[in-house]
């Protein structure tokens, strides 16, 4: 059931795919406006992108769980 739900969510025409370029751009630009050193910018951008994706995944899971109640 859960696997089916996630499979439907990740189908090719799913709007969730639009999140990926947005997350990349937001994390890169945000990190670049906070730091000047490139290694630090890349590192913080990756960390922020992972945080955003995890946060959204958890939020999605909670909303999905509420929907099932």
């Amino acid at each position: 059931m859960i696997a089916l739900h996630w499979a439907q969510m990740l189908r090719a025409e799913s709007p969730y795919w639009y999140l990926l370029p947005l997350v990349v751009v937001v994390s890169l630009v945000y990190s670049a406006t906070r730091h000047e050193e490139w290694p630090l910018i890349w590192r913080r951008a990756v960390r922020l992108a992972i945080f955003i994706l995890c946060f959204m995944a958890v939020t999605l899971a909670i909303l999905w769980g509420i929907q099932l109640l």
Partner: protein
Amino acid sequence: MTPEPHSVPLKDPFTAAVLAWLVPGLGHIYQGRTAKGLLFFVCLMGTFAYGMYLGEWKVVYWAWDERKPVIEGICRLGMGLPSAPSILQSFRKDDAGLPVLGHFQATPSKAELEELNARLSRTWSIAAIFTMIASLLNILVILDAQGGPAEYARAATREPSQEPAPA
């Protein structure tokens, strides 16, 4: 982790901020921070252009009547030149189109807006979100061009308090 140096060549911060508002990254290129300027230009102009493409190049517009996209319009103020044609087009009285610009970012008619909303549905909203996020991110870029990276400013304000108090 090694601490970052607390000096960035900002040249004239006001000019840099205005240039950054006009075109994302231009303020940084003016300051000699070319790599960051190019990063901002590619990321923000790419996001803005992709949003326009998703919205069939009609999602960025301005109107003075009930078609007015208030929140989107305010968000798009963060981008100077890329969204300026929409403001110019909103003063157009006839359907002839402006010189050079033609119908680029022209205000769609009510019927055209309804048709686009119905046909593109969710994609229309996603397109608007792309252009809004690009414009809002440009505000951070303007602040970076004007005052340097945020962490430098924070470190500069923290440093005096870390000095030992005089006996």
